[in-house]
């Protein structure tokens, strides 16, 4: 091999090496919006399903999360912080319940929203605790804390990934190509952190907040199975029929001990 050939080969290899450094990582890479036909929902006939998730009985005592070793986080809480696996609102409803249309939309295809969803890590917790997202929709994971978090979701239907965010305001984009109820998300540096991501292939999903209410608007008329999912109390389903322009009120009830 002549020195000239060696030098050229060296340059090519160094260039390739420099260009590709970054560890590759295809799991959950961002994909383009699907170019499929998007269902057009006629607003004249569209209905909605809404309601509340009620809770009766006694909820388990929330556990104190001991963030002593992370004072930057701990000092941001006046009291607690407490575990979020069961959060009962003052009005007797249940927060962090994921509601979505489980079946009835099979004939329709929906385009991927361009607006990203956001999962923020702040004061050593995920915000929100339960998040809904559409398949292939961009998820922006942000680190608002000034130290390392890693995002380690464990999906079953998509490739798991594990990516670190060592500095404040770092953002990482990922997406999930397959629907799944529900993907647990955790941080290995702060094991109390927990979130759940529900991935569906349509836009009809909601998460209850501190009023325990949910809403699935702009739903075409038809017969649907609606499912409510809670991380501690499990899933419940309900059949609803939505007439033309009809607004259906319903409620789920979870029982404590």
């Amino acid at each position, binding site marked *: 091999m002549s020195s000239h050939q060696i030098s050229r080969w060296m340059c090519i290899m160094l260039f390739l090496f420099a260009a590709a450094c970054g560890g590759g990582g295809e799991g959950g890479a961002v994909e383009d919006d699907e170019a499929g036909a998007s269902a057009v929902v006629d607003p004249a006939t569209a209905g909605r399903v809404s309601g509340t998730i009620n809770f009766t009985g006694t909820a388990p005592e929330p556990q*104190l999360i*001991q*963030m*002593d*070793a*992370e004072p930057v986080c701990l000092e941001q809480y006046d009291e607690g912080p407490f575990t979020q696996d069961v959060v009962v609102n003052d009005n007797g409803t249940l927060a962090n319940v994921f509601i979505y249309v489980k079946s009835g939309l099979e004939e329709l295809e929906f385009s991927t929203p361009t607006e990203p969803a956001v999962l923020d890590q702040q004061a050593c917790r995920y915000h929100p605790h339960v998040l809904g997202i559409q398949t292939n929709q961009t998820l922006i994971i942000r680190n608002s804390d000034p*130290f*390392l978090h*890693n995002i380690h979701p464990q999906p079953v239907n998509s490739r798991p990934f*594990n990516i*670190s965010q060592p500095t404040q305001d770092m953002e990482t984009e990922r997406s999930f190509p397959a629907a799944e109820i529900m993907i647990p998300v955790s941080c*290995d*540096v*702060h*094991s*109390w952190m927990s979130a759940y991501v529900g991935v569906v292939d349509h836009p009809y999903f909601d998460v209850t907040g501190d009023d325990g209410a949910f809403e699935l608007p702009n739903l075409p008329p038809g017969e649907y199975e609606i499912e409510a999912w809670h991380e501690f109390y499990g899933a419940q389903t309900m059949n609803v029929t939505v007439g033309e322009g009809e607004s259906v009120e319903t409620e789920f009830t979870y029982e404590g001990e």
Partner: protein
Amino acid sequence: MTVESISTFGNEVDSLFLIILIVTGFAFVLTEGLLIYFLIRYRHRDGSKARYIHGNRQVEILWTLVPGLMLFGLAIYQTGAWQLIRQILPAESEALVIAVEARQFEWHPTYPGADGRLGTDDDIEAPINVIQVPVNRKVIVRLSADDVLHSFFVPALRVKQDAVPGRPISLWFEATKVGQYEIACTELCGLGHYRMRAFLTVAEPADFEAWLAEIEAR
């Protein structure tokens, strides 16, 4: 070592370091000094010629035996310290026994409860990455690992021990000064290895008991 030593055997480790520093420092000055001297003194000048000499048996014997004895002596001299630190554990009855489990990327300490024994129902789980011990008391740490290798390094105590999954290992120390010190993981364990940091607080016995009671109550 530049980190302050606050354990009973830490001073012994430091003085061993110093002894080795003196011995090797002497060897360093001697050999490098001779090297530099020879390079200057025996550099080529017009008409210079080297000595035709192949060696010297006496000097070979000398510089075999002297360093050999010194090295062997150094080894033997240190076995006492090693035995003290690693081979002999204090009796569990006279020490505070804590369990520390290492996992990606946290240290999980557990204290015995009122019954004074670990592994029973009244064990107290301390906050993640927080370990507190009373000053001037022997402490035994039962180290374990949940997933991969980690290593429990407390520079101020001169203590380091790998945590091996599947094999609990005990180490001991006795802290001599009140204060807060850092604990680092020193066995590569993944992407969070650099942030696997815990805090050791050495407290007066009364403060320690108060702290233990407070976390038990949580």
